[in-house]
């Protein structure tokens, strides 16, 4: 029984990371109706930014709590910056192009980011060790091993999810973003700076990737240049099965995907090779069942 709790804990951590990635997808889709597939690689970029920050902090002799703050801050800023740059430089100019062009373009941007890290980061092809900045150790509760860092990170991730939700739904900035999402033209006539709002929305969406990247590094103590690709596929799946444009949908999708993967290993250990295959079959089946996602309104098309 104890291992069930252990699986749950693992699944929760994975789900939080997936959910964070999916939120980014859903924000981009909401605002610009685009799928920005480079999102996973923006995450990687943020995580590597955090790694460089950690090296700098060590060199400067920061205390460990300051190093932690610095690492997370730089991760978030690095991914927000590159997200905004991609939005401004590549996504906006192509906003009227067919969706397929945008999809391919952002996939290629992701490839370019990935390759740049691999080629230009020192020893970039190899996995990199991410410093452990959170209290190590943990406690054993009837056979379940709770690590402090895991608990802290899950809490932090969930807190950030709520923060993003709050920004989008409760602030003036969020109002502007939602206005642009609803109808770009009208928002413009209402005096909202369209380009700036889009760039900010992309920055916020990318920040979630930065947070996910930092969480990933702190939790797994290891990052590598190619971790973004599979996370992008999973995050995209999560956002879709939840229902694009719906933040809660993205979160549900994230935990669902993690739950599926964990369940296959826990319940059908003989099929653990097929973990992703089974999870993706369920994704396809879910899409067939609810073609616009689990939480999306089943709104009818305007005719």
């Amino acid at each position: 029984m104890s291992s069930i709790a252990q699986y749950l804990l693992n699944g929760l951590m994975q789900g939080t990371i997936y959910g964070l990635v999916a939120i980014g997808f859903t924000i981009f889709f909401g605002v610009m109706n685009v799928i920005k597939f480079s999102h996973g690689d923006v995450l990687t970029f943020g995580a590597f930014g955090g790694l460089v920050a950690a090296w700098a902090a060590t060199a400067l002799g920061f205390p460990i709590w300051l190093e932690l703050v610095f690492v997370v801050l730089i991760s978030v800023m690095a991914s927000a910056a590159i997200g905004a740059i991609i939005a401004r430089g590549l996504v906006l100019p192509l906003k009227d192009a067919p969706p397929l062009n945008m999809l391919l373009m952002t996939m290629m941007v992701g490839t370019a980011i990935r390759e740049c890290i691999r080629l230009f980061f020192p020893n970039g092809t190899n996995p990199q060790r991410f410093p452990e900045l959170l209290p190590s150790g943990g406690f054993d509760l009837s056979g379940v091993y709770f690590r402090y860092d895991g608990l802290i990170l899950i809490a932090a991730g969930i807190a950030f999810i709520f923060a993003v939700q709050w920004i989008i739904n409760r602030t003036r900035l969020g109002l502007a973003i939602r206005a642009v999402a609803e109808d770009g033209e009208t928002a413009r006539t209402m005096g909202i700076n369209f380009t700036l709002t889009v760039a900010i929305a992309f920055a916020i969406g990318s920040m979630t990737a930065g947070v996910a990247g930092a969480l990933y590094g702190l939790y797994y103590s290891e990052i590598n240049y190619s971790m973004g690709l599979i996370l992008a596929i999973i995050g995209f799946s999560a956002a879709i099965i939840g229902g694009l444009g719906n933040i809660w949908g993205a979160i549900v999708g994230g935990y669902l995907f993690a739950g599926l993967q964990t369940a296959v290993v826990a319940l059908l250990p003989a099929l653990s090779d097929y973990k992703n295959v089974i999870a993706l079959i369920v994704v396809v089946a879910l899409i067939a069942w609810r073609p616009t996602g689990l939480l999306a309104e089943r709104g009818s098309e305007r005719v």
Partner: protein
Amino acid sequence: MLGSKGGVWGLAVSGLVLMAAANADGAFAKEKVKIAFVGPLTGSNSQHGIGGRNSAELAVKLKNADPATKYEYELVALDDECKPNVAVQVVTKIASDNSIVVAVPHYCSAAAIATVDIFHRFKLPMVIWAAVLPQITYAKKVPEIHRVSGTLIGQNRVGAQFMKERGYKTFVSFADSTDYGKSMNEYFTKFTNENKNEILGAFAVPPDQQDVSAELTRIKELNPQVIYFGGLTPLGTRVRTQMEKLGITAQLEGNSGIMGDAFISAVGPELAEGTLTFFDSPPLSKMPGGKFFSDNYTKAGYTQSPEAYGPFAFAATNLVMEEIERVGPNRAKITEALGKVKDRPSIIGPITFDDYGQNITPLTTKYVVQDGKWTIWEESEYATGKRKLKNLP
């Protein structure tokens, strides 16, 4: 328009003239001989490919610096991306190029299996520098095929024997789902069973899977003494770090796939401490010429490390150049000469090819991580009993 059309042809012709001119440059110097190197230069295995390429390049550079050689060598390096179809493409390319007389190909076994027939068809001799699946050489006798790296059978035989001697009884196998991992698992299972030890479970995950905690939780339930890992460094790193996160205290037994500094630097010296591997080459410092290789590698200014198989690429390239010096740049003659290689000294130990072209004298060596360094077991504090492996019965 027709004029411009003619321009294309004119250009094609002038291109050929240019090529001819380039070749003519060497007319006064030594005859130029081309050797092809093939390995993954892009993708997730590219650190090995680039390390191997650098090492092969180094061998060529050092050889060319030697005034006593008969020929001037040129290395043509190509990327097979570790994909069979791309490998078929690039090998067809080098095989159709008659100026290339011999090849040093492949890190990934799937690529090598796909190209064996092409090397044979075009009668291009080759010496594999890293792919380790047994059937590349042993599926059938092909005169052109040779391999300096040992098959993964040896590593596993030595490993299983070693673990038995330490008294370990229960194992779990954790491999990646590539050909490499599957084959590793196969021979691990074979030898472990022969030793009458118990395998509690076997797991396979794609090499790019990031989170392995679900599998590890399952392993924690099984509570083995040893986790056998059959995969490459990136996944190995994740397994080791996530074992720690889940509080798994089993002994980690690795293989050639995690051999190299990358593993230790990625998991950190504390976590790496005590990890075992079995690898087909003693440390460079123990080999004649090993220090020469590492010094020159550093001196050449390569930023990427040669990785575990760099020395093999260096040895293979040197071997083919030695044969060319002896019999001349002729494919058939090189094939014949390579078939007779016996006890040839190299930085990875003496090389002897059997009838299948397989190097049968790899010096499989036991390593353990001690203070952030791969240390030969016999020289480690673990062997003396000063430090202890985990979960020793």
